[in-house]
Each structure stands twice: as structure tokens, then as C-alpha cells.
């Protein structure tokens, strides 16, 4: 078990989970999101290849209404 910071909140996670599995675990639609790992935007194509690490800071962004 590892602890990560997910959108500002501490969360426990299986130690082998990758970024795509994390998105699926959260019931989020991966098509309309962007993922930021430790302040770096991670391309969607790499989500399944990157395992979450202890103390990782992960933020998920979506498109919202705006002018």
C-alpha cells in the first residue's frame, strides 16, 4: 500500500496501480481528462505505463464552461 495526493486529498492505493487504473478506479471517463503527475502533464498514451509511487501528487483536470 502507498499513499498519494489525489486532487489535493491523501489517498491509499495498491502499490502496483498505474495511472490508467487509478482513473478507472475513480470512475472517470479517460477521454475528456488531462492528468498531471508531480506538476508535469502526462500524455494519455503513457498512463498505462506509469505506476503510482509513494507521495506522488496527481491532479485530474477536465474542461468546464468558460468564456
Amino acid at each position, binding site marked *: 500500500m502507498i499513499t498519494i495526493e*489525489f*486532487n*489535493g*486529498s491523501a489517498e491509499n492505493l495498491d502499490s502496483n496501480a498505474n495511472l490508467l487504473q487509478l482513473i478507472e478506479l*475513480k470512475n*472517470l*471517463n479517460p477521454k*475528456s*481528462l*488531462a492528468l*498531471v503527475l508531480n506538476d508535469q*502533464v*502526462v*500524455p*494519455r498514451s503513457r498512463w498505462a505505463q506509469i505506476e503510482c509511487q509513494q507521495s506522488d501528487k496527481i*491532479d*485530474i*483536470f*477536465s*474542461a*468546464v*464552461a*468558460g*468564456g
Partner: protein
Amino acid sequence: MLSIGNHNFESRLFTGTGKFSDAKTMLAAISATESQLVTLAMKRIDPSKDFDDLLTPLQQMGVKILPNTAGARNAKEAVFAAELASEMLGTKLIKLEIHPDPKYLMPDAVETLQAAETLCNKGFTVLPYVHADPVLCYRLEEVGCAAVMPLGSPIGSNQGLATEPFLEIIIEQANIPVVVDAGIGAPSQACRAMEMGADAVLVNTAIASSADPVLMAKCFNQAVKTGRQAYLAGLGNVTKQAEHTSPLTNFLNL
């Protein structure tokens, strides 16, 4: 046909998606505008709350998405927001907006120019939101921006074209499209901007805050088309003195 970067638009009315009472009204209004370019913002999601998926229905309507960098307070944050948007939406189009002052939302010229240069070098199609400053617009063109978006008046204020004399200079001098953004509060003001020779206008609050957003959207659609046609037809000269339009027959001295 309006070209910005390698994107072509038949409609010269761009639309923002903010401030509508609900997503259904927003989508109906966007449809009524016949806009082909629609803005969205980026936000970190709150995992404890459901969020509306606006992207899918907009994409189904066939509009192009123009993500903005709203919320960015400096060039570094704006570049980050643009990269985020590009990854999320698969587009290099970006409306660059940096306005750290929450009261008047005035765009920061220095940070905007810096970010514009960086983003142009990274291959983005940059549309910067700026004050109606002809010199700044020229500098933004020099660093490779695809268009400039000078403001008519403060964002969401519905004050109209307070900057009109400066917009005229920008339109006269720019070799890239000029999109008048922010403050347009009535269809007549959008029409005026187009009559002056603006290439497009971006409207949000005036539609979203109307009592009947869908009807107002139709009005803006008509106004922008009319203004564009009037510009193409060519406005007549403005003179101080009257110039008679009828023969001045002297009926009383027959």
C-alpha cells in the same frame, strides 16, 4: 471564409460557454448562434462531486473547441494550462488569457507577450486576449500569434465597444485576424464591430445572461452576419454638413 492558423470558419461569431443557467440552455444557445468555435476553460475536478461533461455534446455538434487559459496569473501558468488543454482536447488552438486582477480582469500585457512567444515556438495556434493596444497587437503578431483578441470593455460587463477608436487602429494595422472579445453586450455592438472590419467577435455573457438566451443567440447570429455584409458593402462617408438626397425643387416660386 475566415482562416485562423490552418482552421477555416464560415461563422464569424465565436461563443463562450460560461454563465448559462444549465448545460441544456447553453447547448441550445450555441446551436442557435451557428458558431463553429466555442470556448471552454480547464478546471481541476472535485472527486466528491459529479461534473457535467460539456465536451462530448459540443463535439457532437461539430464545433471546434477553443480552450482558454483562464485562471493563469502569469506566463508560466498560462503555458502549463495550454499544454494541459492540448493534451486533454487534442488541439493546438489556445485562447491565451492572463488576468491576475479579479476586479477588472485586465489582461497582463507583459506576461501575455511572453507566454505567446513561448506557445508559438511550441507550435500552438495562439489567440491572445489583450487590451485594445495597437502596439501590443503588433508585437503579438510579430511573435507569431494566429489572431489577436482585443477587448471592447471589461469581461462580462456588457459595456460594449468602449475601446472603439483603438479597435479601429488595430483593425487597420493587423495582418492577422482581429477578434473583438469581451464586453460586447448587445447585438448592435457586435454588428458595429463587424461593420468596422473586425474579422470576428466572441460573445458569452450577453447571450448567457439574457432572459431568453436562445433568442438572443439568434439575434447575435443575425447581427454579426449583417455587420460583416455592411463592411463588405462599404459604409458611406460621414460628413458634418447635410447633403441632400432629393432634388431641391423650389415649389413656392413656380
